[in-house]
């Protein structure tokens, strides 16, 4: 078997023009698919970055909320009510809102302010510089060193700024886990300072973070919160809710899906077409092989090998190219939100398998049907 595969390999790669066209087709299709889906994956991951970074097990929110930054404030009694649900170990408020920061240079910059519960600082970030207790110091804010950090002129501990006409002091620099989607820097402070500095409506609690006593309490907590007219979600469910919003209610998901399908079709037509002409060109020779004594399954294995080899090589090149471009883009553009997940790789791989199967199916059908007699007659 090895020998005829080697023949198949030589027939394929020695036809440099067609082999290159095949590879370009598949590489390009894989590249486009990976770029599209990884951009989407990146956006989805970033859209729920706050949920990931805060790290609470459960979130209580208004049912109408579909992404973290547009929270709908809840009255204070909700927090008390949630606290008294059996199975709740503790429940603390979280403030999330937008504000304008005036930098030393006089330039304004929008920021997201997260207010942590004063008593527990639940959801606090990991610090690179400074001590978390300093958040209690007068006008203390912690700046997250994420991709947006530069927009605040890369502040240091002790730097000052103005936030809605209040003085603010940087008391710590936090590590970034996941950056946000909206391109604005994030500041942490205490819940009380946040609601004092930032004008708000009658209600101030954006979210209530809940730690259940055990995971078996979760269904019960959800039910009780629902009775209050609010929604309790686990962190994963909240992330899913946000993803669903972007996927189905913004047109983003459909667009990405369309682009993925289009790149698939482009790849399929280039590669399928080229493979077909490749088979046609060699068809008489395959017929001659049949006359000489090659069995159909040997010819089929040659074609499968050729299609498979090209597909896997093209897949590798496409993935490599996409990774390279994403890496280069990230070097220049820290905000660039693409990330290659196993899911993206899997989707592209399945697409490539389908392209290879369709192409080889067409080839195999042709080759099985040739009659050595027709070749013999010339």
């Amino acid at each position, binding site marked *: 078997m090895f*020998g005829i595969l080697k023949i198949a390999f*030589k027939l394929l790669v020695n036809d440099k023009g067609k082999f290159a066209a095949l590879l370009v087709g598949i590489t390009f299709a894989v590249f486009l698919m990976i770029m599209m889906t990884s951009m989407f994956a990146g956006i989805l991951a970033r859209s729920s970055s706050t949920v990931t970074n805060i790290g609470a097990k459960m979130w209580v929110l208004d049912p109408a909320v579909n992404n973290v930054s547009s929270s709908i404030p809840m009255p204070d009694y909700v927090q008390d009510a949630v606290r008294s649900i059996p199975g709740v170990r503790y429940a603390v408020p979280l403030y999330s809102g937008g504000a304008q920061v005036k930098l030393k240079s006089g330039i304004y910059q929008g920021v997201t302010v997260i207010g942590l519960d004063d008593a527990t600082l639940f959801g606090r970030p990991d610090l690179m510089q400074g001590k978390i207790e300093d958040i209690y110091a007068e006008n203390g804010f912690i700046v997250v060193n994420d991709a947006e950090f530069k927009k605040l002129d890369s502040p240091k501990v002790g730097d000052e700024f103005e936030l809605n006409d209040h003085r603010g002091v940087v008391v710590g620099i936090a590590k970034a886990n996941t950056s946000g989607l909206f391109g604005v820097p994030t500041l942490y402070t205490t819940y009380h300072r946040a609601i004092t500095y930032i004008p708000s409506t009658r209600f101030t609690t954006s979210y209530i973070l809940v730690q259940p006593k055990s995971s078996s309490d979760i269904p019960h907590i959800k039910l009780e919160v629902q009775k209050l007219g609010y929604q309790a979600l686990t962190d994963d469910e909240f992330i899913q809710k946000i993803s669903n919003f972007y996927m189905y209610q913004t047109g983003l998901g459909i667009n990405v899906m369309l682009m993925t399908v289009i790149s698939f079709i482009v790849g399929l037509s280039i590669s399928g077409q080229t493979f077909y002409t490749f088979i046609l060109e060699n068809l008489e020779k395959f017929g001659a*092989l049949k006359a000489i004594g090659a069995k159909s399954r040997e010819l089929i294995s040659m074609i499968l090998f050729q299609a498979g080899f090209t597909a896997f090589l093209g897949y590798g090149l496409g993935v490599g190219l996409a990774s390279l471009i994403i890496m280069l883009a990230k070097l220049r553009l820290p905000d660039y939100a693409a990330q290659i997940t196993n899911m993206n790789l899997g989707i592209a791989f399945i697409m490539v398998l389908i392209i290879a199967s369709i192409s080889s199916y067409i080839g195999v059908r042709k080759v099985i049907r040739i009659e050595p007699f027709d070749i013999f007659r010339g």
Partner: protein
Amino acid sequence: MKKLAVEATGLAKWFGEGEAKTIAVNEVSFTANLGEILYIVGPSGSGKTTLLSMISGILKPNAGQVLLEGKDIWRMSSDELADFRLNKIGFVFQDYHLFSRLTTVENVAIPLILKKCDWDESMRIALEYLDIVGLKDRAYLPPVKLSGGEQQRVAIARAIASRPDILIFDEPTASLDGDTGRKIVEFVKQHILNENRCIIIVTHDSRIFEYADRIIHMEDGKIVEGD
């Protein structure tokens, strides 16, 4: 005492149905022996290629039987028949059908590779056969770089590389000039024919008739003379 290589009896083949039915070969019987060159000649459309295809196991007859070295080839399964062709029959096609993307020696090695012979061994043997046809120095060129007569010799080397008992040539000289064609057949008679081999040649070309041991004439699907 000559040994029988081919024994065909009552072979018939027709194409199409009803009005469009053409009887390409009509109740043909003949024999071919090991150690001889047998010619099948006749006008165009007389059924020569069809007959050749039936006795070499690539076209199933509508009636009659073919015994090759005593075996009824049309009672074999298609895989058995493929193996039989691979081991017993060598084809030289009119258009050669060489792979232009492979080197000459790789082309010659194909039957050996199909016989699951190891790659390097196949190349070594193929080189010997290229030497026999006098083209050892062209081994690593693609066949398209060779002249028509040289390509024909490559096709012959490929046909004999698996050491078949029966060699089948369809119009071997059709695309060669008269001189080259004669040289090829002369070469075949001198170097390829032996007492354990039967060579059957279909041709129009009267310039090569002199190399025949025996000639069968066909007309309208029937043998009109010879055997």
